[in-house]
């Protein structure tokens, strides 16, 4: 089970009381509703038919799940518990610039992902949802068979979707297994590791600039002084001369010089 410890503790706590349990169902319903709306926007912007159908299917499932969860919450809560809830964070704090709280690609960051990265993000999101609903099903009290049935139904839908995503990923990434592996790894990346990597890159860049600066004032000094003495254009060979000397066009095109 890939759920983070904080999410698991939160679910364990939620299932201890009837009121918090109802609130959890409503949070999940809100998240599914919001996710469905985003998926519909994404589907509309997606040009490829198979991906669009997949997204539309996911949106339809999410809307159905939201209705079932909200109805079930209504049956177990009292009227005074009706308050506004925030959507449940499916990513357990893994939201970033590309993923929203459902773990799905953000609508505004959507165009930055190619098909493989996009499907990898979806796959990881669906896996996260599967783990979450599996735990919900496991924790649901035996006297609430309806909740277990809803979770099982959702898990069935998610399994279908996971299979569709696998098929799509296979279709798009058949000749690029390395890219698929990288995309899946990036989709599973934790925010802590991403921040660590960013810090490493920044400090590495700063260090490199420092080294280059020292390099400029030491190793480059004699060359710099020498070339300052020359008043002529420091060109070695003109482009036209070079083209004329290299008659073989194919080898000329291969050369980076």
């Amino acid at each position, binding site marked *: 089970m890939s759920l983070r410890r904080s999410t698991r503790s939160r679910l364990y706590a939620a299932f201890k009381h009837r009121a918090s349990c109802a609130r959890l169902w409503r949070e999940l319903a809100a998240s599914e509703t919001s996710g469905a709306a985003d998926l519909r926007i994404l589907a*509309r*912007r997606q*040009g490829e038919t198979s991906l669009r159908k997949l997204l539309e299917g996911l949106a339809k499932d999410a809307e159905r799940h939201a209705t079932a969860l909200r109805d079930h919450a209504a049956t177990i809560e009292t009227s005074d518990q009706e308050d506004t809830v925030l959507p449940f964070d499916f990513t357990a704090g893994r939201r970033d610039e590309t993923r929203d709280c459902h773990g799905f690609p953000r609508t505004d960051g959507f*165009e*930055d992902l*190619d098909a493989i990265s996009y499907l990898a993000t979806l796959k990881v999101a669906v896996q996260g949802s599967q783990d979450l609903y599996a735990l919900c099903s496991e924790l649901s009290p035996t006297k609430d068979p309806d909740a277990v049935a809803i979770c099982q139904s959702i898990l069935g839908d998610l399994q279908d979707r996971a299979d569709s995503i696998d098929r799509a990923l296979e279709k798009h990434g058949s*000749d*690029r297994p390395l*890219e698929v592996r990288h995309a899946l790894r990036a989709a599973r990346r934790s925010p802590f590791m991403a921040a660590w990597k960013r810090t490493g890159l920044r400090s590495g*860049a700063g260090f*490199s*600039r420092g080294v*280059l*600066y020292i390099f*400029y*004032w030491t190793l*480059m*000094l004699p*060359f*710099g*002084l020498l*070339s*300052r003495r*020359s008043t002529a*254009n*420091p*060109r*070695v060979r*003109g*482009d*036209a001369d*070079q*083209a*004329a000397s290299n008659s073989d*066009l*194919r080898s000329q*095109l*291969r*050369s*980076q*010089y």
Partner: protein
Amino acid sequence: MYILGISAHHRDAAAALLIDGEAVAAAREEHFTGLLRDAEVPVRATRFCLEQAGIKPSELDHVVFYEKPLRKFERVLLHQLKAYPRSARSFVHGAFAWLGDQLWTKNRLVKDLGVGFETVLFARHQLALAANAYYTSPFEEAAVLTVDDAGEWATSLSCKASGHQLETTSEVQFPHSLGLVVSAITQFLGFEPGRDEHVVETLAPFGTPRYLDAFRALIPEASNGFTVDQAAFRYAFDSDQLYDNSLAGHLGSPRYSGDPLLIEGDDTRHADIACSLQAILVERVLTLVQDLHTKTASRNLCLAGELANNRRLIAQIADSGPFDRLFVPDAPGKSGGALGAALYAHHALVPDAARAGSRHCAALGESVDKRAEPGARTLSGDPGDEILRRLLEGQRVAWVRGRVEFGACSLGNRLVLALPARNGSPTGLRASLQDTESFLPCRLAMSDDFANTRLTSDPEQDLGELLARAQIRITPQDSALQCTSESPDGTICPQVVSAESDPELHGLLQRIGKHTDLPVLQVDDFALRGSPLVRTEAAAVAALQRSRLDCLIVQDRLYERRAI
């Protein structure tokens, strides 16, 4: 044979795909990222091109980069050394970019685009630009001139082209670059170099060329064309500040962004600098053109490079130059280098290949969606009727259809339209696109038959072919047309539309003529200030919401700003 051309690392990164020598898709990276003049390796544009052709990266026969990275690095490094120790800051900045990225262009292309290592080729920069101009032109033989900022060593290249051959006749070498002088003066006048050169060009008619002698001293004539006095410029080694402080001795103090722009009233110093710059550009480029004409004895000229975006310069070459016919490609600058590199490689590798020439089409980008965005109303009749009705009511209309054009300007598929004012006052069309420079004039769309009769008094002068592709600035002979000019010198920028090239816009212009006495429309690119041309329907709707336009028509769908 699939050949992909790539331009990147400087500005206007783009990708263009040829199938058997025919351009099937070409796109600028900025259209996908939304970052104006995006210079990153065009991964998204490449993805679009491959999807358009329905192929995978592994199926590409060749990927051609538009310059030679090692040769350019040699030039950059040698000029950094020559400027020692003034180049300390720019050396660290430049070396970081080169050692970390640009020097490994081949590996980067292989990794980012997923193409084979052996497929990657490199064309020389100026030759890629020249190939873009010549191979997309309708000419069987021509003289080709590129006037650019910088590539590897050459900054301007003269060629003689015939059949498939491009033969270099002469070149001007770095650091003598007209394109970089224009960028430096753009920065000196407080605008952004690499983006606002067209603004400086637009300032020219507001002033008088009182700094022309100063510019003649800064850019003296030479045996191969011109040289540039390097004491007044820093662009050879510094990409952040392109001019030296000593330039103030020639032109007065520099203007900084946000300072008042001196173009009207008693002090028109900034306009005078722009006017003098334009005058020296015309002088020096006409010298190159004259020299090229002497060497090639051709009647046809193809012009490319960053300065081929200068509409007044093209007009001067067409008017005063020795060539009978002039051709400027849709994207004469860096982005066109992607298409040019692919075309150059194609003609080098397949010597008996047919040329696309006049069959070449500008609309090579992404098409608008088939699905409507929220807030759309489907029009029952002809969208042209709706546009006409709204234009006659005085509304400003955005019109989006078909595939987005490859060049920096839209030739018809991503336009905003309004009826022109007759007193030279602005219609607010530019202001409705969040443009802050109110002095920037719009273009005038008109049909080819109207242009042929009303634009020029000289029946021998056939401007139609040139005006259909290159939007140059000319002085109309017709008094009614002169009244529509927003420029102080009375020039207009016609966009000539023929029934063959764009039947929809041509039809609309004909219908405008039936309702008003002047069948012309004021048009401009549908792009908000600081943003590239809109690409998709979703982007068009978003731009409509942020603009002060009245409505948007996409194919047969209508969006009203108030209703969204």
